[in-house]
């Protein structure tokens, strides 16, 4: 795990929405943990699915990828993979820096 910053050039149009989006992703990390504890793979699947759909739309391709892997992991009820993606998400959120052109 490196500490390099990830710089994202964001669409200035979305300047108002991006902070909220990133906050929701932060909340997602907590939710993933809760769902996993309850064994609620369906909710995990939908969470991953939505992340997959929204990520790139906001300019965060990596979040779409994480979402896709999370969704697949939830379908397969793969605990390990799910935790791995949660960690990847957390790491990403720590390193990402948004620059509005």
């Amino acid at each position, binding site marked *: 795990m490196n500490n390099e910053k990830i710089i994202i050039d964001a669409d200035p*149009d979305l300047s*108002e*929405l991006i902070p909220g989006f990133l906050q*929701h992703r932060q909340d997602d990390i907590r939710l993933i943990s809760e769902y996993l504890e309850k064994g609620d793979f369906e909710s995990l699947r939908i969470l991953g699915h*939505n992340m997959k*759909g929204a990520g790139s*739309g*906001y300019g965060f391709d990596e979040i779409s990828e994480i979402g896709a892997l999370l969704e697949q992991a939830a379908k397969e009820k793969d605990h390990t993979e799910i935790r791995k993606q949660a960690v990847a998400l957390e790491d990403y959120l720590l390193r990402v820096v948004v620059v509005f052109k």
Partner: protein
Amino acid sequence: MSILIVDDSNDDRLLLKHYLNVAGYKDVLLADSAESAFKILRLGDPSGPNIIVDLILMDIVMPETDGIKACQAIRKNVYFEDIPIIMVSVLDDIKNLQKSFAAGAVDYITKPVNKIEMVTRVRSMLRLKYEIDRRKAREKELIEMTQHLETVNEMLEHLSYFDALTGIPNRRYFEKFIDAEWKRAIRNERPISLIFLDIDNFKDINDKYGHPTGDKCLKKIAKAINKSLRRPGDFLARYGGEEFIVVLSDTVIEGAKNVAENVSAKVAEVEIIMKNTDAKIAVTISAGVSTTIPERNSSYQALINTADQALYKAKKGGKNRVFSDE
């Protein structure tokens, strides 16, 4: 004009709404589930929605009711049969694409959503709907106009067969009627009779009392003649200014003469009372009667002529009488 976005992902709802707002579509409604959307559209309410939704952007993967089922449910509703629904979803299964169109969706936008692509498709779909709505409204107008024209045509047709003053059949209707009866009489080898009648001294009545009074006479006399014709098949028409003609199918000369005498008597009973002078105008008619069993390829005109000649003789003979050569 409003657009409804149905998506369980808050981030997606906001993103799509944002794209639409930026493109100029300010009226955007949000639903976080199919059930929520149904409520907004008042799907279960028989009186229908209380808002106008022109387009729906529908996510497929949603908990409980998915977008495809929601699409079907909405399209089934009578108020939303034509509403364009665009599915917006991650294309991870080609079957979803097929199912979407089978469910009635008109287009499919993949997530992650490309702003320009989405706005372009929304714009063209709204344009299409606008055109369709215009055509439907025009169609409705045309149908109403057609119905109106049909009604007016019926009225005109009626007017063209009936005398405006007396309300009884006019000459045109008479010609049509006797043509049919003549042919039938030929086919069945049955007798057909005519009574040709004329109001005595009608010109004098008009000259002395004025045309409005003359018209009043005509109306009363027509009514009296009509009343005196008891048999359902007997046909009365106004032939000319003060001339009337009666067609009696299946009737021999004695019967026709009887009818003519009845008519004459009834008309004589008609009193036209002049308001100002208390003077009473007495009216009488002269009638000529003719009958025949028509032969093949003959014309009814001959029978009219015979009746006409008989009428002439009735006039010559002193008026107020029925005459027949037969």
